[in-house]
């Protein structure tokens, strides 16, 4: 088993989306179609606020204002406990689009997903969180966030990265330094949910950098997929 195997075995949820708008919304259509989601379009009057309807296996899942989708495309990045993040409307899309394939996400969008998983870990306050930002230099920017996560919660935190620079010592964080291989190619987070059985607290993100600043992968709240990623990380890098 490898991170590549986990990526290959991922089966996307059968999600379809209809955009209701007076305009063609090309940016959002392109973004959604790049996720291998069936996208339809229907016209509504120009005065109406555009929205999209998400269905899974034909059943209604959610309707989302287009403005909210735009916020996710260019998210404001704050810390996982900041009110600006907690109250961000676009967070609902993490639930709606979980389990779909994501391709052509940039680092900023990926960081927004990352914040969602960190937020859930912060809220639970216990359990194990595994994090790989490819390189330790990328991780350096996140040291203040992980320093607080490690000192103000009971989380057990494992950080992975290639040794392109020395990481400052972060108390209560275990750093796994790798010389090469898959750790340098994938951005991932996996949170085991601690002792909670609340649906959605167990979550993971796995994304491969397919070209500079362009990622493809998925995030999921499916316990089996999260467990598979956790098992691989524990078995390979413990």
């Amino acid at each position, binding site marked *: 088993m490898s991170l590549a195997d986990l990526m290959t075995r991922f089966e996307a949820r059968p999600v379809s989306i209809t955009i209701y708008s007076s305009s063609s919304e090309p940016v959002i259509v392109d973004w959604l179609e790049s996720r291998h989601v069936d996208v339809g379009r229907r016209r509504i009057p*120009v005065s109406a606020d555009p929205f999209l*309807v998400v269905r899974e296996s034909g059943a*209604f899942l*959610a309707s989302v*204002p287009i403005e909210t989708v735009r916020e996710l495309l260019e998210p404001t990045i704050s810390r996982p406990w900041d009110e600006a993040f907690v109250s961000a409307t676009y967070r609902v899309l993490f639930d709606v689009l979980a389990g779909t394939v994501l391709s052509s996400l940039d680092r900023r969008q990926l960081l927004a997903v990352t914040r969602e998983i960190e937020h859930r870990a912060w809220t639970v306050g216990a359990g194990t969180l595994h994090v790989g930002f490819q390189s330790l230099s990328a991780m350096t920017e996140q040291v203040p966030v992980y320093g607080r996560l490690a000192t103000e919660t009971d989380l057990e935190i494992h950080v992975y990265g290639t040794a392109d620079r020395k990481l400052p010592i972060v108390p209560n964080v275990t750093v796994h330094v790798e010389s090469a291989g898959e750790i340098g190619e994938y951005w991932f987070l996996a949170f085991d949910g601690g002792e909670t059985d609340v649906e959605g607290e167990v979550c993971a993100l796995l994304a491969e950098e397919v070209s500079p600043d362009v990622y493809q992968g998925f995030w999921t709240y499916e316990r089996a997929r999260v467990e598979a990623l956790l098992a691989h990380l524990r078995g390979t890098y413990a």
Partner: protein
Amino acid sequence: MTHDRPDRAVDGDNTPTLDDLCRVMRNPHRRVALYFLVEHGRVTVTELEDVVTGWSHAIEGRVAVRDDRTHIADALHVVHLATMESANVASVDRDDGVITLADLPSGYSSFVRWSASMEQSSPPT
């Protein structure tokens, strides 16, 4: 002395009157349903439920989930579709799950579109 109202239909004529149209448009969710029907003429009831849900929540910048849609769909089935039918504004084929806009008198569609353009300054509640 009686005064015939200019919008009154003759007996046996199923053409909706202006009163009929206004009765339909008195409710914000029926208005949204009517706006969408005027755009497309004939839609599935399922899509109309989606549209009324999404449209009415988008006005307030809100996401709607399944429970929100169920609430709106129930009201559509119990009240609003029957009101639109009794007003002769639309007909519902319950076997096929399709709703069709009636032939509206001249100017009614323009009136509905004008109303839609006014909604931004007067959002449904």
